[in-house]
């Protein structure tokens, strides 16, 4: 029995040492963390009042701070990174940077509301925080810290070895990749309609969670806590719907459940007339990712909806923005109503 116990102890010690000090994934998770760090650094430098857009990848792909900020006359940072970065992590990092008079817009992906606490604990950022920022991981709670310590699977370890070798060999220049993919407001760029993947988009079929799952989800509770805390500090918090295919069913009860997460805790909620639903032809490579012309078109609509809530005059979009938005497939049908 002693031999088994020693083997088990050695196994655990090696595991913790490897994932705390040696193994990490610089080209996949590391790239996302670098994206987040850059966005946080820029967000910290913005003068108040400012606007921050937070969600998963729906924020940078489908929302343009360049457009919204210009139309509302506010400095804006697109702080969303990816689903899989835990909402608790995202909120904990942005919370200290948001002050009285600032605004935050949250078009959070609907599947993020209904995740369980266990799923949240196992988000991919836990392993990264265990490697890079154990103080923040501990700040997120003892269970989250424990899950972060046990956040790496054997395939993660294998991938880490491959990525570290590739990174050491000079493959994947992360700063250059981020510079090519994001503008200075944190918006995703280069997602042209010509490089979109309609074949892949045609295969996607998402079913949204029901209203009870949304209301009871750990993500919803985490968001509600964030809304309450920021609203108490005088930050204007506004929820919104993420972009999605117009074929994905979104019942009224779902919208009511999402709206309540914000309005019951001191926040606001905007719902666009089209409920942020667009034809597949408007998207890039996922339900949450509009191609850039449609990102602009959607952002123009979002800016117009946010203006009254923020008590800001809404300026018309610039000519270049209008021109790009006009090339979005759904804009061709409604161009007069939306852009002009």
């Amino acid at each position: 029995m002693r031999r088994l116990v020693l083997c088990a102890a050695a196994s655990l010690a090696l595991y913790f040492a490897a994932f705390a000090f040696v193994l990490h994934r610089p080209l996949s998770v590391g790239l996302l963390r670098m994206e987040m760090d850059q966005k946080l650094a820029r967000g910290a430098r913005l003068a108040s009042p400012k606007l921050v857009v937070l969600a998963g990848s729906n924020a940078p792909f489908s929302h343009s701070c360049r457009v919204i900020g210009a139309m509302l006359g506010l400095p804006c940072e697109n702080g969303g990174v990816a689903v899989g970065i835990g909402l608790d992590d995202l909120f904990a990092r942005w919370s200290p940077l948001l002050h009285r008079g600032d605004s935050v817009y949250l078009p959070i992906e609907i599947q993020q509301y209904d995740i369980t606490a266990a799923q949240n604990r196992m988000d991919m950022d836990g392993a990264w925080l265990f490697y890079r920022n154990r103080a923040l991981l501990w700040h997120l709670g003892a269970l989250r810290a424990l899950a972060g310590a046990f956040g790496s699977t054997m395939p993660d370890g294998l991938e880490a070895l491959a990525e570290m070798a590739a990174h050491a060999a000079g493959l994947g220049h992360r700063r250059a990749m981020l510079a090519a993919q994001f503008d200075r407001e944190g918006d995703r760029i280069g997602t042209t309609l010509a490089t979109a993947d309609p074949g892949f988009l045609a295969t996607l079929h998402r079913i949204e969670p029901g209203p009870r799952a949304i209301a009871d989800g750990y993500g919803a509770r985490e968001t509600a806590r964030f809304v309450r805390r920021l609203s108490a500090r005088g930050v204007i918090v506004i929820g919104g719907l993420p972009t999605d295919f117009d074929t994905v069913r979104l019942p009224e009860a779902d919208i009511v459940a999402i709206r309540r997460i914000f309005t019951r805790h001191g926040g606001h909620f905007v719902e666009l007339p089209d409920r942020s639903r667009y034809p597949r032809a408007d998207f890039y490579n996922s339900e949450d990712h509009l191609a850039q012309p449609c990102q602009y078109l959607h952002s123009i609509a979002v800016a117009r909806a946010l203006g009254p809530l923020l008590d800001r005059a809404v300026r018309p979009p610039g000519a270049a923005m209008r021109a790009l938005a006009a090339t979005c497939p759904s804009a061709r049908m409604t161009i007069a109503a939306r852009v002009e």
Partner: protein
Amino acid sequence: MLFNSPVFVVAFLPLCLGLFALAGWRFGPRAALVVLLAASLVFYGWWKPVFLPLLAGSIVGNYVWVRVMRRAMRRKPLLVAGLVANLGLLGWFKYAGLFAATGASLFGVRAPDLGIVLLLGISFFTFQQIMYLVDSYRDETPACGFVDYACFVGFFAHLLAGPIVRPREIIPQFVRHDGRVRSGDLVAGIEMFLLGLAKKLVLADSLARFADPGFRAAAAGHPLSLVEAWVALLAYGAQIYFDFSGYSDMAIGLARMIGIRFPLNFRSPYQARDISDFWRRWNITLSGFLRDYLYIPLGGNRHGEARRNANLMITMLLGGFWHGAAWSFLAWGGLHGIYLIVHQQWRRFGGRMGARLAQGITLLAVLVAWVPFRAESLRASWIMLRGLCGAGGVLLPDLIVKAVPALRLVATPVAVLPYLGAARTMSVVQGVALVGLAWGIILLAPDVHSLRVRGRNAALIAGFAFSVQALFFAPFARPFIYFQF
């Protein structure tokens, strides 16, 4: 209850072992076996208690029937009636839905909803009882008490997915059991259980993440590119081996903890030199059952070449069909039947080839046969086979083609390979590395039962922490593949 669930590992198993040892020490071996039987019924009823009476009825019914048969002057009619009853129960629960649906589609009418839920483990405990019935008819197994018999059939370690153990190997062990838990057995059992757990949680479940999307896509009618199809098939081939051999090791370990020795069920099957050798290494207890209770009674190889081939084909078709109520399982069995017949003819005519080439061909044949076994329909099998041949194109993610520009000569770069995991992480790299490691272990490492102490220590150190990670922190416990059979 699953062996790979926290409730089993941290609650059920320690409690069961503790009560077994306590009952054996305080009240004697019979009491220990009664505790084991009660624990097995709790284990079985955990999922759907409503099925407990059926299991209990089947065990009591068979035991009484065999006692009657042993005393009868004319045993054969009783044997036939017993076989019909057991196979009838299996047929109703497992195949009635399939036959109703097939019949309805042939006549162009709507299939009736029979409302049958597959009884968990029915394929295994039916075969166990058929063995006892037949062996008792042949006087090849001694009579035993009810508790010994019930433990032989219902012991939770093998109740749901085998191994299918011979009555004459196991029943005497229960009869002779002294109700004690010995430390040597306990340690050996825990070690084997942990090694099996690591196979399941660390390897099989990780591989499933790369096997499932490809087969799901084929089931939905989406074409697969070459890399996606091969990663899915290689991942599945490794997954089913680690899943089932891991389960078997866990079952062997659980039995060993209380001093019961189960037979070996896997012996590095993918290292087989030919297809006959494969079947001597893969699911050894099922192969033995099919040989002794089907192939040999059909006539085996005693009535000429044509009859031998027919017997082989019947055995493999029925063996395939035993796995599940779908025609694709029949196709899997049929393919293996053809492989075995071709191999017999090759040997008969004195064919020879190099050992490595023979192993490679065998492996390829086995992998191809997994396609209908895993695919949800024959149409999905066809889509997967087309992908494996490259008919769906050769696609690779942009990121990789940019890193290795020479790949542009053979592959088309795409933003995302949809059936190889998440879009923004390097799942292709992860998938390929994992499949490479898994097949390295499969083809180069000895089986865990052949490992020396040093090798077992290394395997435990490599797997224990990842097992803890998967057991307590994975979002859900993935059932064993063979539980569905």
